[in-house]
Structures are given as structure tokens and as C-alpha cells.
């Protein structure tokens, strides 16, 4: 018998998601914030794969729709990182900083 149930996976993915969100809210370095955002996307991936594994259809196979969605999320995340890091590098070149406190020229 399988000791790991769907709930374990969901708990792990929920923890990952909360950690990522907390990081986005609390950390002050843009690179770290960006890593935390990736963590949130991966939390979704983990729970999708778990849902896929535990949604067994009539033919005894897992529901593969979710796994296809995971591939889309991975691809989109990669594109986001490529564009995002380029923007952060451009910002660093112009301002010599990646700290959010230093990036406040646009204000009320």
C-alpha cells in the first residue's frame, strides 16, 4: 500500500506556495523575489502532477491533461525568466542596484 496520499503532496505544494509568496512579500532583493516567484509556479506544478497521479480514469491511467499543463507552465516560466533576468540586468546597469528600496523614483 502507498503510504503517501494526495494530501501529503498538496500540503507540500501549499507550503512551497506560501514560502514563495512570503518571500515575494518580505525579501528586498529583486533576484531573490524572482526566485520566490518561480517557487510559486513550481508549487503549482507539484500539485498538478499529484492531481494527475491520483485522478485515475476508467482505463487505469492517470489523467494526463494536467501533465501537459505542467509542460506549458515550465515553458512559460522559462520564457519569463529569460525576459525577467534581462530586465533586471538592464536595471542593474543603469542603477547599480537590485534592491527594492532604491527603486522608488516613480511616486505619487
Amino acid at each position: 500500500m502507498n503510504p503517501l496520499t494526495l494530501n501529503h503532496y498538496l500540503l507540500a505544494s501549499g507550503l512551497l506556495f506560501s514560502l514563495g509568496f512570503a518571500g515575494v512579500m518580505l525579501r528586498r532583493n529583486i533576484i531573490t523575489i524572482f526566485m520566490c516567484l518561480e517557487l510559486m509556479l513550481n508549487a503549482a506544478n507539484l500539485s498538478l502532477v499529484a492531481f494527475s497521479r491520483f485522478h485515475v480514469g476508467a482505463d487505469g491511467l492517470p489523467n494526463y491533461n494536467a501533465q501537459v499543463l505542467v509542460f506549458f507552465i515550465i515553458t512559460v516560466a522559462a520564457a519569463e525568466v529569460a525576459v525577467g533576468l534581462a530586465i533586471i540586468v538592464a536595471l542593474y546597469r543603469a542603477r547599480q542596484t537590485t534592491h527594492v528600496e532604491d527603486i522608488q523614483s516613480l511616486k505619487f
Partner: protein
Amino acid sequence: MFPPITLEILVLALGFILLLAESFSQSTSKRSLAKSAVFCLAWIFALSFFVTSAPANPEPGSFWNFYSADPVSMVFKRIALLTTMAVLVMALEYEKVLAKNIPSAREGAGTGEFFILPLFTCSGLMLLASAVDLVMAFAALELVTISFYVMVAYMRGSHASLEAGVKYLILGALSTGFFVYGITWIFGLTGETHFTKIALKLASLQGSDTAILFALVLVLVGLGFKVAAVPFQSWVPDVYQGAPTPVTAFLSVGSKAAGFLLLLRVLEPFLGVASIAHKILLVLSVLAGATLIFGNLAALPQNNLKRLLAYSSVGHAGYLLMAVACVGVAPSALGSVGATVGFYLFAYLLMTLLSFLVLTIATQHTKGEEIQHFNGLSKRSPFLAFALLVAMSSLAGVPLTAGFYGKFLVFAQAVNASQWTLIALGTVTVGAGFYFYLRVVAAMYWAEPADASPIQVSGLSKMIIVLLVAGIFVFGVNPKPVLSAFQTQQTPLASAH
């Protein structure tokens, strides 16, 4: 006759061909890129009237399970094409500012992609209009968002643009995170990704209201960022102010239209669950009320015109949410709300594009975006001043303009749904709107210009401005054509019930 997907493929192919042409051509002028893009988009727009319609009962596993081409989504596609053309014309006007803010060895080098990226956003918007599956909707939404990241941060030499780019990147990615996690839970609950099948499964689920609400709230947070609803609006003023003006215009129209389209699509299956429908409507009403108040009141003290338009964009999201919050619990009620939202988005598009086009042209001569820089614009260019007057009156909701009729439809929906609190809030905020929109008009007509040299407008821009002004009046007096285009048929989801 072509299958409808040809349109998206053509737009994407056009984007790739122009990228190649940009890399290998010897000429330094990038204007021809934008002009050929506008020309080709006009042809694609014409082709959109010759597409075949979708089969009524798609076979399982076929492409039609992800993609629908009902009349309403065709209308959205055409609107996306027209918007992109207007944005490209605006980008042509903006070329000098752009070249100044991009550090490069040669004059104008590195500006080419700025005229090509809107094409990718356009194809994303068109795909999103047709998406009937969460996977498709997610991929299309990200195509729109990621090309916006690049465009917002495009002016590498401008601190404001880079800062806006980073802020949009972080908050956009955050909203994607929430949206994806919400999709995950929707899939977990139903085992489906197609909207119609989700609706069927959700209606038969018993006793998992909390999980359904959790999934929906995650998705709402994600979409709230896209449509700039309070409390997820914090990025809007900074990004609107810092981004290049044509991108701001595209962002305010494209991001909002995409968000509301997806919001209606996603809400529909959930409203079919009788036990939680009233809770969803309560959440939507609270969001609408908060957005109305914040957007319109925070715009009052603004002196920067782009920032003012940013808060106005939040305010208009409030009116749109007010219409969405009036969705009845019965699925058939979505039809009329969909038409209201569609018309409001269309009117918003006309007046926003018009104000940003005038802003793009005028700021190059006024050397600033503060309201005081627009002092006496009527003496420098009566044409531009009149266009901005029309745009501001329509945004405020003066009768006989498209903006007025949009607001009228929203309030009519609210009266039908007996949303009295929202109506009261809406009335107060419309009054506040008159003050801050007409302040711009007063500066243009009653203040003396600091520098009275006349402003010239190029032929292409003049044509677009005339068309937009005409559109605001024509659809304000006779809104029938647009309304019936959105009403011809219910969304494919509703007809499947």
C-alpha cells in the same frame, strides 16, 4: 474561406518575418517596419470576414476542443487587430523619444523590435478571445503578458521605464503564480480543463464549497492584477507613468480586455454552483465598490496626465466590475452582462487610444506630461485640443459620447440587479470623474500657453484621430451595431448548458 486560426498564424508569421527583416536589412530607418506591419494587419483584418465558422459538435481530441470561433470572439479578434494598428501608428509618432532613450552607437539602432512586439501581443489577445480551455487561456495570457514585460522596459536609457518594467515584471509574475495555482485547484476538483466540462463537473460536486471558493479566489486574485482591481492595483500608476506612451495605451486596453474576457469565461462555471453563487457575487461587489472609490478619488490630486489616466483606468475597471457583479445566478443572465462589458470595453478602447495618441503627439512639443504643460493647447493646435476634449468628455461620461452610453448600460444592469449600494457609489464617483477629467480641458482652453508655436500632426495620425473621434460620437448616438455584435449569440459555454 479559411479556418479562423489562420488569422493568428498570419499575425505571428508577420511578426517573425519582420524580425528577420529587421535583423538583416541595411537601412537604419525602422519606420518602414511599422508601416508595413500596419498595412499587413489591415489585410488580416479584411481576411477576418472570410473565415469559416467552428463546427457545432467538435469531435473529441480535435483542435476545436481548445479553440472556439463564435461571432463574439471574432469581434474581439477584430478589435485586437484595430487596436494594434492604432498602437503602431502611435509608436511611429513616439520614435524620436524612443531613439533618444536607447543608448546605441548609431541613431535609431535598437528601436526596430518596438514596432514588432505589439504583433505578438496581438496574436496572444486573439488566441485568448478564442480560448475555451484553461491550458489555451493560460498560454495565450502569458504570450500577452511576457511581450508586455519587454515593451514596458523597452527604453533602456530611461530609469523610469526600467523601473516600471521591473515593477510590472514582479507583480505580473505574482499574478501568474496565483492564477496558475487557482487553475491547479480547479483541475484537482474537476479533473477537467475545458470550461464547459468544468461547469458540468462543478454543478455535480457536493460538499466541497470551501475548496471551490479557494480555487476561485486564487484565480480572482490573479485576474484582479490584470484588470487593475483594488486591492491589486498598486502597480498601475507607476507602470503607466514609466512605460513608453504607446505601450501604456496598449497595456490599458489590452490587459484590461484580456482580463475581463477571461474573468467572464472563468466565472461562468462557478456561478452554476448554486450554494456559492451569492458569495461570489458579494466578493465581486466588494471588489467593484473598492475599485470605484479608490480609482476615482485617487485621481483627484494627480497632476501628471499619464498618472491621471492610470487612476482613471482603475476607475473604469470599477465600472466594468460593477457590471460583472450584476450577473444573475442563472447562466442565461451572462449574455446581457457580456454585451454590456463588451460595449464598455469597446468605448473605453476608443477614448483611451484617442487620449494617449494626442498625449504622444503633444508631449513631444510641450516637453512634459504634467497638466500644466497642456496649458493653452487649443491655441497651439485646435485639432489636438478638440480631440483630447472629446476623449476626456467621453471618459467622464458626457451624453452623446460612447463613454456615456457604456456607463448608462452599466447602471441599467445595476438597477436590474438592485445593487443600490454600488449605484450610489457609482454616482458619486462619476461626479468626481467630471472634476479631474475636465480639469485637463480647462487647462487646454482657458490657460495661456507658455510657448505658442503651432504643433503639426502627421497625415496618418490625423486620420486615426479623426476616425477615433468619429467612432466616439457615432457609437455614442447609435450603439446598436456594437451591441448587436456582442449579442448575436450567447457565449459557446452558455449555449452548451
